Structures are given as structure tokens and as C-alpha cells.
């Protein structure tokens, strides 16, 4: 088996039944047993379609026209049942929440084995083996919906590994993880490949995957292979604006390019008084539990705040207090001097526009235009102003020409941009975004972050993120949240230099942060790698 490829794909093309154009075209590559292949590319380039072809969901669950050959360990899988393929190929979906079916960890890991009708003794043995391997035996009897993001990811992986596949497909396994959990996941993936597992991993966070030395990289563009080869070669072929490369590489490449435009947030004119004020705010979802513990802070005009912290630290709960969706159990939150207990969420929305993490919870309108007009209409803006606001928002998120498209028919990345535009169009004084870059490709999110910061409409911007580089590049203030408390609040250059504190809050310094820390004495502030390349 060592000399035959684990995955061999030849001239593979696929067109979804209800689409005119091919989703992937003439894909050919192979992965040898024990190799790790990184599959990268912009949103909608065909990565997920390729995964579905390998794991058999295409054409069994997703119908369409398929051509070409897929061989797994030299066996043509076109006539295999999904059950048979699932014993060769294990798939961990992008969001573990979408994959976990069991209510308890043990049930979840057992699910596939129960379907294969193994004996109860063997099922129990395999559950223990998988949990032990991933170091999560202590979670065995826990309820799955109470697990942290990192734990969920490991449990989803345990459920797949228990079926003893020889090939593992991972669709953006790092997307919902905090930096420390992402590092743990990557170490685990490397360990699996070192022990003979063949892994194909789709990931936008290319820089992170660099650290575990993938054997091969496949870069896709518009359904086709643009690059197939080693990691070193990738940085030479692909533009550093398209994927997130390690900062030293960008530094090298950007030195010969013209310096980037400096992006400075210019806040709209407003009062010097705090826009939002937290006074000793404490909160718990249930009696006896405390998610926020005595938080006091103010959001002022000119702030670009990055809220950083581990999964479950209380970041989203904190922000939901600012818009009045949650009311403090103790203390108070003032929005423009008014207690959120005494004003409606709709009234707060005039001051604070909040982009939720998941776009699918808010999109409903038949067209992008109507979706974007919904907020300003609720806030009773006049029709002429609404037209202008909507158009401006569409342009910022790069969806020009899509005004008449139904938002629900767009890709996830595009839906996310519609959800951001929907709040931009409301022209609130503060823009708040929860994980704005999740599910977005690098080029897209950098472009709209650049555009948002240059808007003259906002007096302050706040975003929750797991991406430290976003804080390094865009924020002028960092809030570090840990266990329901703000453990650090200050300029990024002050907060992010405390590496012990970062480690304690499950944050991992990136190559860009390290580079900035080395040069901050000269630069005076944090800069993006392209800008650092032009500073002597």
C-alpha cells in the first residue's frame, strides 16, 4: 500500500444539477499514504466540492454531472456505497456544530460504529481508544452542546477516527477555534499524519498550517488547480494579497512593491462623552453562573477596539450587553447616557449597529437591496437617504451588481458580507462586528476591513476576533477578555507585548505580531507586513 497513492484523482470535473457552470474542472492530483495536503483558495473556488467528491457525498447526496476518476488506495469508489467509503475516508466538517449528532460525547463517538453494527464491546473499545488518543477521555459523559469550540472539534474528530479511516478530510478545521485550540488541533493533525494517516485539509489560515509543514499544497482558483507543489513554491506563485502568508515572507515580497496606502480611522464628528459605558456589569445566563464579572469600561469616539479572548471567555455576552439584547444582573450599561434597561434594542440600534456572527440568522429578503434597506427603514430614514446608504454599503463589501440577487442563494462568504452591509447601511454611530472574518477568504476580508475603516460614518468600531493580526493591523485599542473579566485594556502595542498574558488567555503570537514587536521601537506603532517592508 505504501507505493500506491491513498488518493488518486484524474481529470475530475463536476457540475451541480441546478447550475450551468462547472464547480470544479479537470482536477488531477494524488496524495501518498501518510502525507498532509493543504487545499487553499478563495471562497467559492471549489474546495468543498472537491471534498464532497472524495467522501462520496457527490454524486450520492449532491446530484449533478461528474466525470473523471477517483481512486482511494487504488480502488475506484464510483460503485461503492457511502458506508463503504466512510470506512476509508473520514470527514470533519468546517463547523463541528454541524456534524455532532449525539447529545453526549460517548453517543457521538459511537454513532458511526453503531451504524456499522459492530458489537457493543468493540464499540466501547473503539470509543475509549479514540478519546484516549485525542486526550479527551474526561469528556466521555459530558453533554456535547456544553463543550467549548475546541472540545467540540476534537469530539467530532473522535467520532470519525473511531471508524478507523485511512484518509481524513478536514474542511477548515481551525475556523471556529481560538488560537491556542487551533495550535493544538494542528499538532494533532501532524501527529496523525506522522502515524500514517493521509490528511487533506482545507484551510484559509495558511500561515498557521505552514507551522506543521504540509507535504504538498494545492491552490485552487475558479474550480481549477492553479498551483500544486511544495509550500515554498506557493509563496512564489500566489500573490500575498490572496492568501495569508507568514509575515517574513510578505516582508520579502512586498519590499519590491510600492508601499501600501496608509489606512487611518477618521471618526465621524461627535461628542467627547463616552458613547457606551459599562459600570460594574455582572451577568449570568442561569442563577448561580457568572459569565461577566464586574466589567467597567467606556467606548469613546475614535476607538477601534479589538476584543480578543478564548472560546467561551464572554466576548459575545459582553457585546450583547452594549446593544441591550442582554441586561446586566448587576451594574448598568449606558448608551449615550441612557440605561439599556430603559430603552428598546431598536433605540440602541440607532447608536450601535451589531453584525451577528452567523448571517443565516438574519437574512430574509428577496433581494440584496431589500435586505440592506430593512434596517434603515426600521430606523425611519428617508427613502432618498436609504437608497444612498444601501448603495454605499453594497460597494464597500464588494457586492456591486448583486443588488437584485436573493441573499439566501449566495455563498456563505457573500452572505456574511451582506450581513455586514446590512448594518453598514443603518449608519449607526458605532459599528460592532462579531467575528467579521469567519468563513471569509483573506483578500475579501482585508478589502472590506480596509473599506470600513475609511468610512467617514462611524465614531467608533469594535470587533470580536480570534485573529490577532486583525487587532495588530486595524485596532487602536485591545480588550483582552478572560473568564468574564477584562484582563487588559489598552493600545495594541502595550497589551500584545505581554506574551505571558497572551498565553494565559489562549492567544498565540503570530509572525506579524513578533515582527512588529521587534520593530515597534522604530515604528512607534503596529503596522501590516507590507508597510513594515518599507521601513528601514
Amino acid at each position, binding site marked *: 500500500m505504501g507505493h500506491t497513492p491513498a488518493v488518486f484523482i484524474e481529470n475530475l470535473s463536476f457540475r451541480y444539477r441546478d447550475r450551468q457552470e462547472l464547480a470544479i474542472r479537470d482536477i488531477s492530483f494524488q496524495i501518498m499514504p501518510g502525507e498532509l495536503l493543504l487545499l487553499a483558495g478563495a471562497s467559492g473556488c471549489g474546495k468543498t466540492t472537491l471534498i464532497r467528491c472524495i*467522501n462520496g*457525498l457527490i454524486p*450520492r*447526496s449532491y446530484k449533478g454531472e461528474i466525470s473523471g476518476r477517483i481512486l482511494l488506495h487504488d480502488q475506484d469508489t464510483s460503485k461503492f*456505497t*457511502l*458506508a463503504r467509503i*466512510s*470506512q476509508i475516508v473520514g*470527514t470533519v*466538517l468546517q463547523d463541528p*456544530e*454541524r*456534524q*455532532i*449528532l*449525539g*447529545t*453526549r460525547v*460517548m*453517543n457521538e463517538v*459511537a*454513532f*458511526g460504529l*453503531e*451504524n*456499522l*453494527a*459492530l*458489537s*457493543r464491546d468493540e*464499540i466501547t473499545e473503539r470509543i475509549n481508544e479514540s478519546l484516549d488518543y485525542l486526550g479527551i477521555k474526561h469528556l466521555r459523559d459530558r*453533554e456535547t*452542546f456544553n463543550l467549548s469550540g475546541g472540545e467540540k472539534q476534537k469530539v467530532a474528530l473522535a467520532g*470519525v477516527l473511531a*471508524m478507523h479511516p485511512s484518509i481524513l478530510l478536514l474542511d477548515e478545521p481551525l475556523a471556529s477555534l481560538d488560537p491556542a485550540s487551533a495550535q493544538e488541533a494542528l499538532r494533532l493533525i501532524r501527529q496523525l499524519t506522522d502515524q500514517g494517516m493521509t490528511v487533506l485539509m482545507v484551510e484559509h489560515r495558511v500561515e498557521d498550517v505552514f507551522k506543521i509543514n504540509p507535504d504538498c499544497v494545492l491552490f485552487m482558483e475558479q474550480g481549477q488547480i492553479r498551483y500544486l507543489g511544495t509550500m515554498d513554491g506557493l509563496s512564489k506563485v500566489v500573490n500575498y494579497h490572496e492568501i495569508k502568508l507568514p509575515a517574513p515572507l510578505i516582508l520579502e515580497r512586498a519590499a519590491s512593491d510600492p508601499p501600501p496606502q496608509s489606512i487611518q480611522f477618521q471618526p465621524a464628528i461627535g461628542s467627547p462623552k463616552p458613547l457606551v459605558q459599562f459600570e460594574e456589569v455582572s451577568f449570568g445566563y442561569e*442563577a448561580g453562573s457568572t459569565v461577566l464579572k464586574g466589567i467597567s469600561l467606556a467606548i469613546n469616539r475614535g476607538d477601534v477596539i479589538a476584543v480578543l479572548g478564548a472560546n467561551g471567555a464572554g466576548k459575545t455576552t459582553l457585546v450583547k450587553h452594549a*446593544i441591550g*439584547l442582554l441586561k446586566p444582573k448587576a451594574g448598568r450599561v449606558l448608551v449615550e447616557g441612557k440605561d439599556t434597561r430603559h430603552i*428598546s*434594542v*431598536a433605540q440602541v*440600534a*440607532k447608536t450601535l*449597529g*451589531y453584525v*451577528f456572527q*452567523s448571517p*443565516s*440568522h*438574519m*437574512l*430574509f429578503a428577496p433581494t440584496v437591496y431589500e435586505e440592506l434597506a*430593512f*434596517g434603515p427603514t*426600521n430606523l425611519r430614514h428617508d427613502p432618498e437617504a436609504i437608497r444612498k446608504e444601501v448603495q454605499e454599503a453594497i460597494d464597500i463589501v464588494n457586492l456591486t451588481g448583486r443588488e437584485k440577487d436573493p441573499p*439566501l442563494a449566495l455563498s456563505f462568504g457573500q452572505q456574511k458580507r451582506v450581513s455586514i452591509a*446590512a*448594518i453598514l447601511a*443603518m449608519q449607526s454611530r458605532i459599528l460592532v462586528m462579531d467575528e467579521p472574518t469567519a468563513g471569509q477568504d483573506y483578500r475579501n476580508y482585508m478589502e472590506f476591513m480596509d473599506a470600513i475603516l475609511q468610512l467617514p460614518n462611524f465614531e467608533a468600531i469594535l470587533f470580536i476576533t480570534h485573529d490577532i493580526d486583525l487587532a495588530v493591523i486595524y485596532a487602536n485599542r485591545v480588550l483582552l477578555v478572560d473568564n468574564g473579566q477584562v484582563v487588559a485594556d489598552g493600545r495594541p502595542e502595550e497589551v500584545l507585548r505581554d506574551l505571558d498574558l497572551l498565553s494565559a488567555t489562549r492567544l498565540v503570537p503570530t509572525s506579524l505580531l513578533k515582527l512588529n514587536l521587534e520593530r515597534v521601537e522604530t515604528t512607534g506603532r503596529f503596522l501590516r507586513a507590507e508597510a513594515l517592508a518599507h521601513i528601514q
Partner: protein
Amino acid sequence: MLVTWRYRKRKSIIQWFDPRAWLIFYACFLACTLLFWDVRYLAVFGVVSLAILLSSGIRLMEMRRPLMFIALFGIFYSGLTFLTGRGGMEVYQSEHLITRLAAGFTLFGWQPVINVTLEKAFFSLGIFLRVFSLASMTILIPYSLNPAQYGIIFRGLGMPDKIAYAMDLTMRFIPTFGRDFMMTMDAQRARGYELENLRGGLINQVRKMAPLIVPVTIHAIIGSEDIIDAMDLRAFGVGPRVWLEQLHYKRRDIALIVFGILLFFVCGGLSMFGFGKFWVPL
């Protein structure tokens, strides 16, 4: 991700039994309650269900919302019956007037009058007792069944694997739908949407509910597709499956099932011989 009802292991009558035995007893109890209109019989069922409810170990705070709903629904439904006498004429033919309540005003020359009769009063009391017994027995189910055992419970009741797992997912779909609804509600409120400010006729109001209904529905559909993919990728439905967890009947469970079935036949027999029909004290 599917969430579950708030289940905790408690020391209660309901959790003392095997969940399958309890569900069989519950079905028999439900059927028996629906056989009678006599408030004396229904009072017995009401007292039994109240005793079970109180001994369930579920704190009042945990159940306050469903209890409030039951109370409001029961009062509204029986109150409407009392005021209008709706449905009553199917179980009684004549009425005995207790008092006649006439409004102290007229509407376009018509004076609203309520004839308070013994039959209307006892019929609405009967309705209230039925609703109370059925609803209080039903709300115990989600709080008392272990979500990790839903599938095996239904499989153990004789359903095929696929149906049993579908029932498992359905039981979890309801709280998941509730969570998604609240998330959508929050997202739209953050866009200035106020449900309490809906104006216009019924159709217009339903139309204005679209910002809530559409995302929740779409989310449910997408969620179902994800679940199907996740199940397919782990070989669900390719043949008979093994359920890791096993449930074993104990003597008390058999006794409960026998008691439930006996109760059903006794009540059925009583009902057939004319016992438990509508009754008023005359």
C-alpha cells in the same frame, strides 16, 4: 447544532421507571382521560397528574413558562366554553339556569346576556380538568427523559431504526427551533425591528413577520441538510444498527405497564357501560 430539553437526573416517580414503561403508561393515562366527561372521574385524573407533577422533582422556576402557558390556555379555553357553551350541546341536551347576567349597557340596541347554567359550568370545569391532566403529564416528558436515550427508547417501543432515530431528532428539533427563533429575533431587533409595533390587518401582520419566519425556516432546512450529510458520512441507514445503550425492564416497569393497560381496559369498559358520561349535581 441540535440542543436538548433541560434534563437532569432527579429522584422522582417518573424517573424511577424505565422510560418506555412510563411512555406506555402515559399513553394509557391519556386515552383514559379522554374517555370521560364526568368531573368526578376527571378530578381523579387531575389529582393523579398533579401528584405526579409535584413529585417530579422539577423546580417550579424551571417549569414556569410551560405551566403558565397551560394555566392560561386552560383558563381561556374553559372560560370561552363557559361564556359561549361551545361544544357542550354534544354532551348535554337540556340546561338548568342558575342565574342570568345581563350587561348594564346595550350595543346598537342589543344587550349582551350570559345565561349561567349548571351544565355550562360543569362542562367548562370538565374541559379545564382534561386540559390540566393532559398538559401536566405531557410537560413532564421532555424534562424527565434522558436525551441520550431518545433513540433507544423509541427503538425499544418497537419502531424501526430509522424511525426511532428520526423521533430522536424530532424531540431535539423543538428546543433547537426555539433557540434559533430567539437568535433570529435578537439579530432582527438589532436592526431596529420591533415585533410589538406590527400594524395593519392580519395578512399584513403575517407578512411583516417574514424577517423572523424566513431565517428560522431556512436555518431549519440548512440544519436538516447538515444533519443528513453528517449521518450519511457515518454510514447511517445502510443496514440494521446496534444501539450502544441498552434499557432493561425491571419488575416495577412491567407492573406499571400492566397497570396502565388494565386501567385503559377498565376505563374503556366503564365508558362502554355508560359510566363517566357528563354529570351535573341535581
